């Protein structure tokens, strides 16, 4: 009796549809497709070949959430690209858009006022903490620790609400614009920020107790996904992954932008290079971000309020715009900005998101839409870890490595 599957291949020659070719694998190997419809894969597929319980080959198959960000960027006005690029990493909205804005400012040859710089850095650090907590939560649930998942996602709410207080939106704030920021800090923000920082420091101690120093979790993370310093440099990984392997590289430190050359903070670097070190890097970075938030809030409080936007735009604003700013602290977007033409030129800018360095290259031909926007996102650079670090580990180590490098498919696929 022959079994026919509806819609399936009937003869062997029908199997030659692209992507469905029959591939030969070595004897005694077992090929498992993890994803894209899998609770532990995210928006991607990892094809692993296992010998017993040991992975001998891993093949990350990316691109399931490719949204043509770069191409869409070429058909929209400059300012409309900001809400678009935010969608790469929703929890990290300010960090992924600031370098784009920096590139535009380079072409326009303007320098935002100091207050705007501090405001942007403030939101960047709030976003960084939120993104790290998000990553922590996913990491926790990947290795079976549901309490870490729930705690991290609940505490992320504190940061999201702080961002809402500052910008008016919980996520996708569209906060930085060429020449400044969209809104000034509300009156009661400093107290809320300091309270959140105190709360977060207390919670980090609890995280250490239940997750990082938990013997079961430590056994799962220690020595897993070890990336030596040399290999990390060769693979070109960025962000916490590189810093956990002993590479002191951080765009905020190596190429300071906005207020980062004025505030005092450290770059936590660990030498171990395993999943545990990557988790610790995130914890230490959250602590440093809290320091930056407090310093930024102090600075903003001690300096008089002014419109956080460059005079080139502010001077042209009608009186109503100024009235709105005095009343609500909100910088009403100038209509001219929406169709703003940017002089011909090329610019390159980089910034540090929670997951690593993001790079923008913007080319303008003098039109109101960019000629080319090239984005290199940190997750795309870290995805190579799957190919070169996963083999040799056990199947149950795959989620540990995945969670520890905090790979975020929407950001990598752009």
């Amino acid at each position: 009796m022959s079994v026919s599957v509806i819609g399936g291949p009937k003869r062997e020659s029908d199997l030659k549809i692209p992507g469905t070719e029959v591939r030969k694998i070595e004897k005694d190997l077992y090929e498992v497709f993890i994803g894209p419809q899998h609770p532990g894969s995210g928006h991607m597929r990892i094809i692993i070949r296992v010998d017993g319980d040991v992975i001998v080959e891993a093949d990350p198959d990316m691109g399931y959430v490719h949204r043509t960000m770069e191409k869409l960027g070429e058909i929209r006005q400059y300012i409309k690209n900001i809400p678009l690029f935010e969608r790469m990493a929703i929890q990290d909205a300010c960090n992924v858009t600031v370098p784009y804005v920096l590139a535009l400012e380079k072409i326009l040859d303007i320098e935002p006022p100091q207050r705007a710089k501090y405001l942007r850095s403030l939101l960047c650090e709030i976003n960084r903490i939120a993104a790290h907590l998000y990553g922590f939560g996913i990491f926790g649930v990947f290795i079976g620790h549901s309490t870490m998942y729930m705690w991290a996602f609940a505490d992320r709410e504190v940061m999201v609400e702080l961002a809402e207080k500052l910008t008016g939106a919980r996520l996708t704030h569209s906060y930085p614009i060429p020449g400044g920021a969209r809104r000034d800090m509300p009156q009661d923000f400093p107290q809320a920020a300091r309270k959140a920082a105190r709360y977060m420091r207390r919670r980090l101690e609890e995280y250490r107790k239940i997750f990082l120093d938990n013997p079961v979790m430590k056994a799962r993370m220690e020595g897993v996904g070890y990336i030596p310093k040399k290999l990390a440099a060769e693979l070109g990984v960025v962000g916490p992954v590189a810093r956990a392997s002993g590479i002191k590289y951080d765009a905020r430190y190596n190429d300071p932008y906005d207020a980062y050359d004025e505030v005092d903070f450290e770059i936590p670097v660990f030498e171990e290079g395993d999943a545990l070190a990557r988790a610790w890097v995130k914890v230490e970075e959250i602590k440093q971000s809290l320091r930056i938030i407090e310093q930024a809030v102090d600075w903003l409080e001690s300096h008089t309020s002014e419109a956080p936007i460059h005079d080139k735009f502010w001077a042209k604003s009608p009186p109503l715009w100024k009235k709105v700013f005095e009343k609500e602290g909100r910088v009403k977007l100038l209509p001219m900005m929406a169709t703003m033409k940017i002089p011909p030129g090329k610019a390159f800018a980089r910034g540090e998101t929670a997951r690593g360095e993001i790079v923008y290259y913007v080319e303008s031909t003098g039109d109101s839409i960019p000629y080319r926007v090239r984005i290199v996102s940190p997750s795309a650079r870290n995805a190579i870890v799957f190919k070169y670090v996963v083999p040799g580990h056990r199947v149950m180590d795959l989620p540990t490595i995945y969670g520890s490098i905090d790979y975020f498919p929407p950001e990598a696929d752009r």
Partner: protein
Amino acid sequence: MSLVEVLASIVFYPPIYQLVIVGLIVTLGVVIIILWFERKATARVQRRLGPYHVAPKLAGMPQLLADLLRYAFQEIIIPRTVDRGVFITAPIIATVLSILPIAVVPFTSIPDYWPIPMDYSVLVALAISTVSPIFLVLAGWASNNKFSIIGGVREAFIITAYELIAILSILSVSAATLSFNFIDIVNAQMNTAWFIILNPIAFMAAFLAVLMSTSGFPFEIPESENEVVAGPFTEYSGILYGLNMGAAYMKRFAFSIILAVAFLGGWSPLTPGEGILYGYLLPSIVVIIKAFILMMVFSFLRSVYGRYRLDQALQGAWRLVFPMALIGFGIGIIEAYLGLT
């Protein structure tokens, strides 16, 4: 004989009472309550509310009944590629076998109320408990799915690791009392002290073995969601999936009853007296309450631990818990030699 007496004689006819009343109805009730407790306790640790929407006054308890009904009436999808006969029968047999040990565990010392009077009840209970995992492996194998097969193989690895530990550590009680009969074991505990105090190492080993056998955290490895989706149960749906998931809890309850009788003194503070009420019902309630407390401890571990890696769990079982079980057995023999029990 009045109607009540007739009913009582039917309900408390030992095979019916232990197999139907305790084995099915109480077990189902305990599983539902323990699932609710697990959700609520985990939610409390994780600073959430847990089940709430269905009857907030009952703290969301009927939510579990709703879940049960959903499983009961959901369509059972049987893929074409599976081995139909085994696919359907494996979870059913596994569930039945996982609650069957309750049938041979006595709940009282009165001979009239033993379902099957025998001198080897410890051995028989342990023997029955070792059969059900085979059907989980079979369920995984019959599913013809890569994740199911990996899950089934993991289950098989775990079986080899915990089975010997469970048997050895529970038999240490027999070694101490020189008897395979649960009645003698409980009587010995009533004369001296509970075996959890006399032989804590064996109890710890047995506790860990039960945790491993029922996929409790931190040993929730065969069903580990992030690599093997739902392990051996990936292809299951509807009531068959519910049976698979419930079987682990039912097995945990059966094991908890064995542990309660073997280590926690059985019906200990109570001396079974005359009549059904004092001779059968109350002692059995004491045993069930002790088993329930054990179940709560098992459930609470979910909110504290993640899961071990497979090789770490096996290593821990063979290198740490197995020697523990051997030491526990040795302690049992020494106690018997010294005449402590």
